[in-house]
């Protein structure tokens, strides 16, 4: 395992978990981002070339969770709740207070929620442990996600799409589409000219 990895610039006295694979050019602002990280997958978080996680981005990753940031993907204070897979494509930008959750962590049935809550205070550290199947989140290449957006379990967002601020996304989003609203709906598709602009 070698010596624990720390971040030279860190304000938090933590370390980077051993199954986090960071490209030499990737940037994580603080090890506090791993305060709820429990992944035991061979690679629990992979960050590609130039990918970055700023502010209070939190990797709340369960034992089987795998998170991946593509090249130059950017997260500025994003909460990632992952028990299966959260895959973020190259050049995707995510704003503050964005929630990406691939699991509700608790059953819809109130009796089941009681079971999870009864266990929470005896876990180390205290947390809600998944009892329900997770559904992976896949975010394409060059997607732009505005602030306060919630992406719910199972959602796939196509390449080049834009999710307006405060949207709540429950359904898949096709490529090159602007969506907004709570619940989110399609505002318009990008035109061929826009898609090809600057290529």
């Amino acid at each position, binding site marked *: 395992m070698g010596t624990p990895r720390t971040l030279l610039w860190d304000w938090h006295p933590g370390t980077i978990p051993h199954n986090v694979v960071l490209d030499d050019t990737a940037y994580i602002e603080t090890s506090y981002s791993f305060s709820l990280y429990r992944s035991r997958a061979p690679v629990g978080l992979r960050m590609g070339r130039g990918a970055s996680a700023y502010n209070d981005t939190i990797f709340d990753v369960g034992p089987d969770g795998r998170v991946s940031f593509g090249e130059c993907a950017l997260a500025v204070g994003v909460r990632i709740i992952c028990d299966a897979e959260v895959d973020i494509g190259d050049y995707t930008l995510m704003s503050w207070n964005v*929630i990406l959750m691939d699991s509700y962590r608790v059953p819809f049935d109130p009796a089941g929620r009681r079971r999870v809550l009864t266990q929470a205070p005896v876990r180390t550290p205290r947390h809600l442990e998944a009892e329900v199947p997770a559904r992976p989140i896949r975010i394409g290449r060059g997607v732009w996600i505005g602030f306060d957006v919630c992406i719910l379990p199972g959602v796939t967002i196509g390449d080049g799409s834009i999710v307006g601020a405060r949207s709540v996304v429950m359904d898949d989003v096709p490529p090159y589409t602007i969506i907004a609203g709570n619940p989110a709906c399609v505002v318009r598709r990008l035109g061929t000219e826009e898609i090809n602009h600057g290529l």
Partner: protein
Amino acid sequence: MEETMTDSTPFAPGRWTDGVLPANARVGLNSLILGDHAFKRFHSRRDLALIIGEHCTMDGVHFALGEEGRVKISDYYYFTSALLLCELELCVGSYVIIGWNATIADTDFHPIAPAERIADAIAVSPLGKGRPRPQLVRRPVIIEDDVWIGPNAAILKGVRIGAGAFVEAGALVTRDVPPRARVIGNPAQIVGEV
């Protein structure tokens, strides 16, 4: 400080890891409050302004209580970074989960009538020293047992959320939610049952 979050032995009474609890707060057996902002905006003068039951976890929370605010929370409550704005009364049942960055407010803080609102703006400004504010509309918020409130959701004044209800992430709840209903959207609409 960190060790209290990683120690699973029950303790009594409850604690706040980052300071001394206000004298008018009661926190029950094995309940844990984390975060140095928890009581920064706690201004209640009531005898018992905050009552929290047993086995609750409040990981990052703002108890923003006005002078007359009172918050009562039962047992096995779990939330992360919730903002509780209370000028009158907030009651939360047992086995309630509140997601990250959710907001609950029992008042809108400012009046609707423009002239009154201007008077309020002056009263709360640096020029308004001692000037009384217009009467605020305050209505208790009641959250019954077994409710799930998703991250980034907001619950506004006078709302009662029925037992077992499921408030989706990002929902903005302005009206009562029946027991076991699942709501989503802004404003929140019923989309099914759990």
